[in-house]
């Protein structure tokens, strides 16, 4: 890491702690009393013979944002994808341990994966709208799950979802134009609207801003903060500033191990583990 970046990181940490003192101190006590939405116990993940995650245990609290941070290849995305069983689609991937959503075992063979994924929505690293119209993109989930009984219902769901994703004002005149014609930031908000449209309980976001410019990133972060009122959100991010800005709790992963998890302000200002300390102050990663 160059000298310049180091000072940047240091400056960021200053502003981070400032931000957290301003914003989060009041709510952190409240958080501890919140009920837990997702619990993971001793999760191990293998890609073939290679183990990617080692005994990860974490609780995701309801109606708040938890950020997974850590250097590349540390397993944070792998863990996120365990929560809605997206890893099922990867050849040779095996998950051990226990993940419960509202007390229900996610990896129970009897569970309906389709229903699970409707309850746990996902937003991906790269905006991936379908090559369909904006309207059809958002209507996709509701149509599959039969959430709308008629056309009016469907339109209402689409409009509400677009509004919740703060995209409606920008696209209301061109709902029937292709979603791929939007800008990167708009596409990502379209993907968020698409996820919201199925009314999930949990939304997983896998580095949702990594392909976006700072302005689009700011908009998405603002949106995440708004969505917290209605949804439980787990976000993987490379940016520590982003974790500090949007999350209430932060989990730090390193080499497939969950090193430390706690209130965001604590992770960034007074981490208990040396590795977390090193990472958040920019000494490695």
């Amino acid at each position, binding site marked *: 890491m160059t000298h310049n970046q180091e000072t940047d990181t240091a400056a960021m940490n200053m502003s981070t702690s400032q931000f957290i003192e301003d914003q989060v101190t009041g709510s952190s006590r409240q958080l501890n009393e919140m009920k837990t939405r997702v619990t993971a116990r001793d999760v191990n993940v293998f890609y073939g013979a290679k183990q990617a995650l080692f005994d990860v245990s974490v609780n995701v609290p309801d109606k708040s944002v938890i950020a997974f941070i850590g250097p590349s290849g540390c397993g944070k995305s792998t863990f996120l994808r365990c929560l809605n069983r997206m890893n099922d*689609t990867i050849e040779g991937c095996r998950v051990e341990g226990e993940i419960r959503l509202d007390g229900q075992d996610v990896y129970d063979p009897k569970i309906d994966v389709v229903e699970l994924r409707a309850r746990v929505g996902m937003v991906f690293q790269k905006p991936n709208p*379908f*090559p369909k119209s904006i309207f059809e993109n958002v209507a*996709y*989930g509701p149509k599959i799950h039969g959430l709308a009984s008629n056309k009016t219902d469907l339109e209402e769901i689409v409009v509400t979802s677009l509004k919740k994703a703060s995209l409606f004002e920008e696209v209301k005149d061109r709902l029937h134009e292709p979603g791929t014609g939007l800008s990167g930031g708009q596409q990502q908000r379209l993907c968020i609207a*698409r*996820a919201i449209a199925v009314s999930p309980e949990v939304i997983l976001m896998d580095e949702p801003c990594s392909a976006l410019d700072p302005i689009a990133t700011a908009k998405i972060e603002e949106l995440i903060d708004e969505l917290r009122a209605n949804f439980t959100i787990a976000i993987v991010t490379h940016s520590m500033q982003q974790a500090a800005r949007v999350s209430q709790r932060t989990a730090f992963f390193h080499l497939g191990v969950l090193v430390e998890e706690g209130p965001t302000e604590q992770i960034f200002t007074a981490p208990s583990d040396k590795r977390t300390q090193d990472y958040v102050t920019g000494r490695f990663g």
Partner: protein
Amino acid sequence: MNSLTVAALLLVFLGLAYQQGWSLSRRLATPEGRLHSRPAYHGSLVAIWTVAPALLILALWALFGNTASRAFIIANLPAELADQPASVIEPAIQRVRQIASGFGVAGDVQPYETAAGQALRQFQVIMSATVLAAAAAFAALSLYFARRRVALRLQARNEVERLVGYLLLACSAVAVLTTLGIVLSLVFEAARFFTFVSPADFFFGTVWNPRFSTTGAGSGQYGLLPLLWGTVMVAAIAMFVALPIGLMTAIYLSQYARPRVRNFVKPVIEILAGIPTIVYGFFALVTVGPFLASAGAAVGIDIRATSALTAGIVMGIMIIPFISSLSDDILRQVPRAMIDGSIGLGATRSETIKRVVLPAALPGIVGAFLLAVSRAIGETMIVVLAAGNSPFLRANPGEPISTVTVTIVNQLTGDQDFASPQSLVAFALGLTLFVMTLFLNMAALYIVRRFREQYE
């Protein structure tokens, strides 16, 4: 001329010239003056300059040597024979050539033939020696001049690159020129056909009955429609078989199959594409046709053993690997992110395929479909054997039919007289077929290209 000698001569010059250019350029290089190009390029350039003129001489000999020897033979034949029409003189020339080559001829050898043969033999020996010597002389001369060109600042690298470019261009021109030649010969012969039969009678006639050329020129009826109908019907049946099976195979291979299954199944399917079509033809004739006939009889439908249905079904089987392989490639191009997006919303595999993968891949699949159709239209052997060769307008696929390709085979096998419409019609049919497949292929390529642009 002994081609081994020629090849050896060329190789010797090639090696010599390369070595000369290489060492000469190396000697030129001094600490003050750097070579513009590396010695290898100088060597290559000198080699090209040396061998190219020799090759030109040999090419000219290959082009005009036959004409020269022919003129020589005619000059050596008795004068009264030289005045005979082509039908007499051509076999005579052929006999002389065979005597000269030492293989001998059937029947008694006339004294003048032996004399002409021996003369030709001598002529050939002298000519080939001359050509060889000329080629060698040219090569030596150009080696001398090429050596003189080698200089410190000679941009040998750029020149070699340019010459390689020309060489590659020439290679691709071969394919283009061949196509052009085929089209032109089709057009000219078809034009000759249309002097016998009006295009309206040909393109809109409903009766195909060309008779035989012995019964007189232009006496038959040359209606294209029964043949076109047969072609379309067989191709339609083939696509009806091939499209669903091929597409489902492609979907299975690209979306469901584990790599191990895929690595086994895909090559096996592609073996189907390697079976010669004549083998499919007798598979149709011996197995499928009788089976269909007896199956039809069991349920009270009259199906002939050789019919549009038999040919169509077997052709469909032949086309399956074509469709499945192309569609598989196209389906795999649909970005993983898009599939994940759909699955992440709780869609099942099949919903994802139906609503996201197939619509995204549709243009490509249509392209594959059109390419397969143009193959079905041009396919010959299966229909020759299994369609029954009966050029009538019939709607029932259980009846025998005939296609454009089968008719071309019929018109061009046996005794041909290329002055009669009975043979010339083949070119008009070929042209029709060519235009049809050309448009299908162009449409397919256009659609596939549009699709490619979408995901780059």
